[in-house]
């Protein structure tokens, strides 16, 4: 319902506020490192970080590494998501399987992937696939658990209705479970995007020849804090962009829901 909620400011104002937060952040960072309250050795200085980032983009060296990292991220995200959705649905619809495998799924989720890096390297080599694998193991579980729960949350009456209308298992999936679980899926995707990137970067960090993680590690090796933070800055910019894409898709797929249920305070 369109309620008497306090009107939210429009898009330009929001953007301005966001910019304000960003500037405030850099300012605080600047002041703290300038006065040496935060050691520039650990925190760099915002001016230097921005200058480095700019230089990297201007000279173009970063694009190659960025491309590799984004490719890994995208692959990890897509594979992890598809697998998570598929397994989530399968487990939710096959109670025996889910009961039997439940503890093992949880156990695997708790394995520190970093330790598995040599095994990934052995199986998948040092190229992008071992990084993708790392990302997939992170993304998969987040999506999996949410899809599993999302399917269980389907309204029993709506489900019964669809079944009475003659829906087959496949129909139920497409017409009931999937749309009903979509908000769960998207909630998990917002976390998953970040973790896909983390997986890719950590994978590169642990051993690789290219990518942003590689650059960050290289900078760290020579105690180049500015380089490290510049790498992280680039990372975050791109993850926000990817997430915006996810949000756009979400808006399209969930356009049927009532608007403004966000709590509309007075």
């Amino acid at each position, binding site marked *: 319902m369109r309620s008497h909620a306090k009107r939210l400011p429009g898009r330009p104002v929001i953007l301005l506020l966001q910019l304000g937060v960003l500037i405030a952040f850099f300012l605080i960072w600047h002041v703290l490192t300038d006065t040496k309250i935060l050691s520039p050795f*650990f925190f760099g200085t915002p001016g230097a970080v921005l200058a480095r980032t700019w230089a990297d983009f201007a000279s173009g060296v970063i694009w190659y590494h960025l491309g590799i990292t984004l490719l890994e991220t995208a692959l990890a995200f897509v594979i992890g998501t598809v697998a998570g959705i598929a397994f989530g649905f399968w487990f939710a619809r096959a109670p025996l399987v889910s009961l039997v495998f439940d503890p093992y799924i949880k156990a695997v989720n708790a394995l520190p992937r970093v330790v598995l*890096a*040599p095994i990934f390297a*052995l199986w998948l080599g*040092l190229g992008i696939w071992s990084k993708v694998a790392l990302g997939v193991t992170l993304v998969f579980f987040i999506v999996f658990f949410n899809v599993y729960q999302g399917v269980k949350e389907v309204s029993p009456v709506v489900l019964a209705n669809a079944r009475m209308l003659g829906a087959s298992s496949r129909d139920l999936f497409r017409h009931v479970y999937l749309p009903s679980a979509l908000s769960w899926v998207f909630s998990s995707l917002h976390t998953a995007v970040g973790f896909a990137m983390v997986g890719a970067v950590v994978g590169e960090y642990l051993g690789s020849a290219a990518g942003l993680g590689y650059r960050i*590690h290289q900078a760290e090796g*020579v*105690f180049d804090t500015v380089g490290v933070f510049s790498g992280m800055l680039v990372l975050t910019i791109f993850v926000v962009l990817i997430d915006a894409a996810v949000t756009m898709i979400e808006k399209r797929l969930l356009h049927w829901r009532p608007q403004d249920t966000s709590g509309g305070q007075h």
Partner: protein
Amino acid sequence: QQTLEKTDIKIAVGGKPLLYYLPLTLAERLGYFKEAGLNVEVSDFGGGAKSLQALVGGSADVVTGAYDHTIQMQAKGQPIVAVAQLGRYPGIVLAAVNKSGAVKSVQDLKGKKVGVTAPGSSTNFMLNYVLTSMGMKPEDASVIGVGGGPSAIAAIKRGEIDAIVNLDPVISQAQADGDITVLLDTRTEKGTMDVYGGPYPAAVLYMKPDFIKENPKTTQALTDVFVRTMLWLNKASTDDVLKVMPEEYFLGNKSLYAQAFEHSKPTYSPDGRFTQVGADAALKVLKAFDPAVASTSIDLSKTYTNQYVEDALKRLQK
């Protein structure tokens, strides 16, 4: 015994089980810290860079790490001082991977994939230095970080890299499996001289100058412990070492560990002393590849001191 300013000491190390840091574990196992009245806690990190950061950040008091760090940190305006040398040769080995078979000599490295422990690490610098001294550029080989553990072995076994620059136990393991052919070996005096033109210092005990100023007696006690360990190690047989070391360390494969130790034995400093030539060699290498070092003038005399070692030797060698 004189009273120490500080008895609870936090030591940081980047990869304790590595043979590179063997003296630290030995000192611990031989009980020398306790005898010196020191109560140490050893924190192990994923790499030398991280243990150094722990020192700079104040969460560790002293570090056993690469001598390179003292130079790099001076360039960054974060002075640290090495007080005892644990390793006199770097122990880095450049080897061709047999499975790939693309590399027969150092000259073949051009355009090949070379695995180092991590980009920007001392193994990477060694490779760069070798390439330049052969008249090539560092970019001529493509560098891949493979780590210093099983993932390096995995890379060798898959033949994904054409050559590898790494340390023990990776090298010994790969050698034992017959997977690599050693091309350059800085575990020996000859190899080190060939590569660097001087005894390039490896692991040292370093700390912040402030720490020394505030805790001179503790610093001396710490140095005593390591000098004592180096003297013991100089005389010890492989069996002696195996007896002292904790069992976990050779649970993987005891004979491999023994073999690796024997390979590495010459790299340990006999008495803990630094030499000027060694420091010069290190600076030369770093100047070539670390832009921060290249752009600063380094005062090597501030990166190490033999004062505490000499004092210790005077008392211990009596």
